[in-house]
């Protein structure tokens, strides 16, 4: 207890030393881009939070507010850990200089007591940081999921699913669900799966795609696999994967014309533009 009182009573000199130490970190460190005034004021706030926490035995409100502010400003976690390590060192050194007789017993007590104040703080601040990171990761996962299996109805009865990036089991499941729901919702006779953007097709990915195609056939639509690049074709054959059960095409363009054939349509040029130009030329000649 007396160590604590000693530190609180002599907070001014400890703070001063702490400020010096952390200032020396500034240039060599991450915070080099932050203005001196901001750095100074944040340091003051930080050290105030530390002392508030020591005085109140872990008052969490001030710590929470401070960490929230620091996280919002985008300061690195190492600033917090460095600051607290420095504080631990500075206060230990200060307490050692204040006492006349130092034996190992005394030192153990002192160190335990300083750790008692500092460790909960470190734990809490690191928790706040990792909590915010986890939150961001979960947000990004949701965003990624929304982007991972898009379905585009391009024409009556024809739907395209462009896939980009690697496919894992979780994503494959999502792809299958979206594909089937979408095919029914848009009443699609033909569904094109475009794998131009899938970097690697191994047995697992192929298996998932085949399953999806089979399921699409069960609900009564046709599945065409498009965008098979030369290297993908080589891998598929080398791995002995049998894709002969459903049509495959090298490009979306070819796949689309197959889809048009299946739905009983074809593309006709209207030649309107050319005719117009000829008419214009004729009228010019006539004048």
């Amino acid at each position, binding site marked *: 207890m007396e160590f604590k009182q000693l530190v609180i009573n002599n907070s001014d000199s400890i703070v001063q030393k702490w400020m010096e130490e952390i200032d020396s970190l500034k240039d060599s460190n991450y915070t080099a881009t932050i203005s001196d005034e901001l750095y100074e004021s944040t340091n003051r706030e930080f050290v105030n939070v530390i002392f508030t926490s020591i005085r109140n035995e872990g008052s969490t409100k001030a710590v929470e507010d401070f960490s929230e502010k620091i996280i919002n400003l985008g300061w690195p976690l190492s600033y917090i850990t460095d600051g607290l390590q420095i504080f631990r060192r500075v206060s230990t050194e200060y307490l050692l200089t204040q006492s006349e007789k130092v034996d190992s017993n005394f030192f153990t007590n002192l160190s335990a007591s300083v750790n008692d104040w500092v460790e909960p703080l470190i734990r809490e601040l690191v928790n706040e940081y990792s909590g915010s990171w986890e939150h961001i990761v979960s947000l990004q996962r949701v965003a990624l999921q929304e982007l991972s299996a898009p379905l585009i109805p391009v024409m009556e009865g024809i739907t395209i699913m462009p896939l980009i990036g690697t496919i894992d089991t979780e994503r494959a499941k999502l792809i*299958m*669900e979206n594909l*089937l*729901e979408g*095919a*029914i919702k848009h*009443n*699609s*006779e033909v569904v094109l799966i475009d794998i131009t953007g899938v970097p690697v097709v191994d047995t697992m990915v192929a298996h998932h795609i085949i*399953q999806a195609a*089979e*399921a*699409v*056939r*069960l*609900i*009564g*639509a046709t599945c065409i696999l498009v965008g098979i690049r030369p290297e993908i074709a080589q891998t598929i054959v080398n791995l002995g994967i049998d894709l002969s059960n459903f049509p495959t095409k090298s490009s979306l363009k070819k796949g689309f014309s197959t889809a048009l054939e299946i739905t009983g349509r074809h593309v006709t040029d209207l030649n309107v533009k050319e005719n117009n130009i000829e008419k214009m030329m004729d009228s010019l000649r006539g004048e």
Partner: protein
Amino acid sequence: MRIPILKLHNYLLISIQTEIDDQTAIQFQEDLLDKIHKSGASGVVIDLTSVEIIDSFIAKVLGDVVSMSDLMGAKVVLTGIQPAVAMTLIDLGIHLKNVPTALDLEQGLIKLQQELGV
């Protein structure tokens, strides 16, 4: 309980509205083959839009019915298989390879017409 089989011109229409148990499935198989024999229908559409669960036995019966009807000269098309059902079947390894499918009743009838060359 028995599943009603409707006759429309040259076709038979079956809409399965309830969960089918094994007994019903077998009964249905017999009824359908009888009906094909009596009516001389050349096409059959089995609509599964309201079916939420198909287990491996029902799937087998459906596959058998298709092959049997084929033998009797009637083409069968399964329509309206729900996404969840399709996924379960694929997971179970039931691919119903020789069974023609269509999105809904309308598409099913069109498919039948195409296959029968009418």
